[in-house]
C-alpha cells in the first residue's frame, strides 16, 4: 500500500509541477461556472413563471431536478475534454523518457504501479470536483435543495470520471507519444459518450446493449438520487477491466521489449 501511495504522490506532484493540474482545474471551474449560471437563470425564469402562473408552469419547482441534475450531466462534457489531459502522459511520458525503467526495476508489482497512477489521477479529479462544491454551496445557502441527490450525483460523477481515467491510463500505456495517447483517449471517450445516440433507430435488443454501454446513461439515475447497483456494477467493472488491461499492456510490453 505504501508503494501505491508513493507512486500516487509522485503522480500528483507531477501534475502540479506542470501546467496540467492548473489547466484542468481552472478550465473545468470556468466551464462549470458557466453551466451553473445558465441553469440558474433558466431556473429563475421558470420559477417566476410558476409563481405568476403563466404558461402552465410546474406546480412546484424543484431545484434538484431543474438545476442540479442537468448541471451534473453537463459535467460529463467537461470530463470529455479535460480527463484525456490528465491521463495522456501517465505511461507514455515514462516510456519516452526512460523513467519506466526505474519503476519496472524497483521492487514494485505492475498492479501497484497502475493503482498508484490511477489514484494520483483520481485525487486530481477529486480536486477538480471539489471546486464545484462552491457553486452547490450557494444553492444550499440561499435555497433548500435535498442533499441526498447531490451526494449520489457526486458519487456518480466520481465513478464516471474514474472510468475515463482508467481507460485513459490504458490508452497511455499503449504508446510513447502523449499527444497520440490524448487524441485516442478523447476519441474513445467520445464514442462511449455518444454510443447510444443511434439506439432509437435500432432493434430493442441493440438499443438495450447500446444504452447499457453508454457511459453517460448510467449517470442519470445518480443525479436523480437513485443508487442502483446496476449502475454501480457497470462503473466498477468498467474501471476494473480497464486497469486490468493496463496491467496486461505493461506486462506484454516487457515481453516485446
Amino acid at each position: 500500500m505504501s508503494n501505491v501511495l508513493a507512486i500516487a504522490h509522485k503522480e500528483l506532484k507531477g501534475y502540479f509541477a506542470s501546467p496540467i493540474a492548473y489547466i484542468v482545474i481552472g478550465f473545468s471551474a470556468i466551464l462549470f461556472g458557466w453551466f451553473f449560471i445558465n441553469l440558474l437563470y433558466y431556473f429563475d425564469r421558470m420559477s417566476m413563471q410558476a409563481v405568476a402562473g403563466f404558461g402552465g408552469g410546474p406546480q412546484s419547482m424543484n431545484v434538484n431536478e431543474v438545476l442540479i441534475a442537468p448541471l451534473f450531466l453537463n459535467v460529463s462534457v467537461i470530463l470529455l475534454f479535460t480527463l484525456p489531459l490528465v491521463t495522456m502522459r501517465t505511461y507514455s511520458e515514462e516510456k519516452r523518457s526512460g523513467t519506466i525503467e526505474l519503476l519496472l526495476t524497483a521492487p514494485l508489482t505492475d498492479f501497484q504501479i497502475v493503482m498508484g497512477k490511477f489514484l494520483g489521477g483520481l485525487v486530481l479529479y477529486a480536486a477538480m470536483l471539489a471546486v464545484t462544491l462552491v457553486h452547490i454551496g450557494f444553492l444550499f445557502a440561499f435555497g433548500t435543495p435535498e442533499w441526498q441527490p447531490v451526494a449520489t450525483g457526486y458519487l456518480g460523477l466520481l465513478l464516471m470520471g474514474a472510468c475515463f481515467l482508467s481507460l485513459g491510463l490504458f490508452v497511455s500505456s499503449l504508446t510513447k507519444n502523449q499527444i497520440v495517447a490524448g487524441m485516442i483517449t478523447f476519441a474513445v471517450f467520445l464514442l462511449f459518450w455518444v454510443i447510444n445516440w443511434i439506439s432509437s433507430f435500432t432493434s430493442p435488443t441493440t438499443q438495450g446493449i447500446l444504452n447499457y454501454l453508454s457511459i453517460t446513461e448510467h449517470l442519470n439515475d445518480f443525479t436523480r438520487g437513485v443508487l442502483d447497483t446496476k449502475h454501480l456494477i457497470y462503473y466498477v467493472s468498467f474501471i476494473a477491466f480497464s486497469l486490468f488491461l493496463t496491467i496486461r499492456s505493461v506486462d506484454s510490453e516487457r515481453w516485446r521489449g
Partner: protein
Amino acid sequence: MIEVQHLTKRYGPTTAVDDISFRVEPGEILGFLGPNGAGKTTTMRVLTGYMPPTEGRAVVAGYDIFEQPIAAKRRIGYLPETPPLYPEMTVRDYLTFVSKIRGVPRAERRARVNDVMERTRVADVAQRHCGKLSKGYRQRVGLAQALLHNPEVLILDEPTAGLDPKQIIETRQLIKQLGGDHTVILSTHILPEVSQTCQRVVIINKGRVVAIDTPDNLTSRLRGSETMYVQIDAGANGAVQDALAAVPGVTHVAQTESRGTVASYEVNSDSGRDIRRELSAAVVNRGWGLLELRPLRMSLEEVFLHLTTEEAPHE
C-alpha cells in the same frame, strides 16, 4: 552472487543476446565490454528484471529474477543507460521518491538520501530540478539513485558516459570503493575503464560471449607469440637482421624503422619463452648499442578489436 545461465533474448526475428552464461562472485567488479549493439544493455535489462529472457535464467543474490522478481529487485541497484530522472522533481525529492519505492524504511530515508548525495557529489544541486541538470550531474544523480537502498548488487550501464575527465576519475574511484561490499557489473566501451576498475571482463559481441577473463590474462593470453621491440645502434655494420634471426627461439625479425645508424626491429619468438637475455647478449657481444628492448604486449584495445572483428581467428 550473480549467475547467468544460457541466457537468450530475441526481439522478433533478431537475437540480441545469444546463449550467454557467466558468474559474478560476491564483491567482484565485472566489466561488460562490447561494441554498440552487442547486447550489453539487453543483458543488463534482463538481469534487473526489466524484461524477461526468451530462454535461460538469471539468479541475482540468490533469487531467480524471473521467479521471485520482487525479492531479487530489492537487492539490485540499477543505473540504466539513460538516467531515469523526472525533470519536474528536485534532486532531493527525486531521491526521496526512489528511496520510498525501493523500500528504504521511513526513519532512514533522510540519512540515506544525504549519504548518497555526498558520495556521488550531487549535494550542491539538491534543490535543483532534475530537468535542469547538466549531463554529468544527471549521470551522477542516476548513480545516487542506484545506491540508495544499499543494494548487494549494482548494475551500472555506462556509468561514466557524459562525465568530464575529473568526474570520470571520481566515479571510477567510487565504483572501486563499492566493490568488496557490493557486487558490481558495469558496462562500458571505454577500454581503460575496464582495466582500471574491473577484476574480470566479459567481452561480448553480437550477443555472444567471446571472452571472460581478468584484464591482464586477456592481454597476455591472446598473444599467439611473444614480440620484442628492439632498437639498436649498429654503427656501419648492417647485418643486424641476420644476427637477430640467429638468436635461438627467434622465429621472425622485421625492421620497422631506421634512422641513420639506428634501426628498430620487431622480433617474434615462440610463445612462453623469454629471449631477452639471449637477444641482448647477441647485440652487446657484437659491440652494438642496445638502445631499447621491451616486450610488446597487446593492449586491451587490440584484444578487443581482435575479438570483435570478423576475421578474428578466435571465432
